[in-house]
């Protein structure tokens, strides 16, 4: 069932402002580790947005993969930077670019609300059924892709 009107709007505004603040934080903070944590906030807000589209499995998958794995790897990569090399200035150009992008995004992505009905089978079950029957060959190929990614990453990182 769709969310009631005021709650939908409240969530939209709350997550949107969190997203914008997080985005500004990623760009404007001088310490790159603070930037990475701000990126974590952005990814959490993006994943919570999928609640408004009634797809709860995507929320969980985004939280697990983006925040749990990808943000952690970015943090580890950022930890290699020395403390003395941090950027000390407060660049005005980046503020202007961030605001411009914000306005363009708001104007170009406002969509109308859609009514979604709830099925007998839950979302994750439907995804599982389709994955195993209609898309089982891509499912197997995904495992091969993951294997290749693992081997490639280890081969590169060992040097």
């Amino acid at each position, binding site marked *: 069932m769709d969310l009631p009107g005021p709650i939908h709007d409240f969530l939209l505004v709350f997550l949107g402002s969190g997203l914008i603040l997080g985005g500004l934080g990623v760009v404007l903070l001088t310490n790159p580790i603070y930037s990475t944590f701000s990126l974590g906030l952005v990814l959490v807000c993006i994943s919570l947005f999928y609640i408004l589209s009634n797809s709860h499995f995507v929320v969980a998958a985004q939280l697990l*993969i983006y925040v749990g*794995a990808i943000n952690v790897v970015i943090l580890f990569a950022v930890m290699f930077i020395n403390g003395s090399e941090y950027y000390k200035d407060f660049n005005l150009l980046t503020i202007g670019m961030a605001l411009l992008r914000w306005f363009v995004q708001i104007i170009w992505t406002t969509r109308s609300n859609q009514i979604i009905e709830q099925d007998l089978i839950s979302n994750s079950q439907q995804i599982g059924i389709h994955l195993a029957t209609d898309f089982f060959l891509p499912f197997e190929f995904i495992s091969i892709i993951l294997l290749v990614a693992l081997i490639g990453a280890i081969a590169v*990182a060992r040097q």
Partner: protein
Amino acid sequence: MFLLYEYDIFWTFLIISNAILILAFLIFGVLVPIRKGPKKLSSYESGIEPMGDACLQFRIRYYMFALVFIVFDVETVFLYPWAMSFNVLGVPVFIEAFIFVLILIVGSFYAWRKGALEWS
């Protein structure tokens, strides 16, 4: 609750657990006496005088573990919907998921042999 009715119990649990934490910090923030001194402000090193710098150089081992973790985390996300629909699907789907996990076990053997899982 007023949002996502089927998660009522979950919201109650979340709110109560957070309220206990916040209450604990507030009460102790009021009750604890604060006395500053040079010894109290130095960093803790298991009772001895702190020696050396607090920041160590980052080791590559942490990154290797995060890398292996990402691949197996993505695999786990694919196994969740399979597990949710397991009771309505038959044995052939079980075999398919078995093949999926088998290919990734080959990958984990590779990582093991190549020393990506070494800590020392």
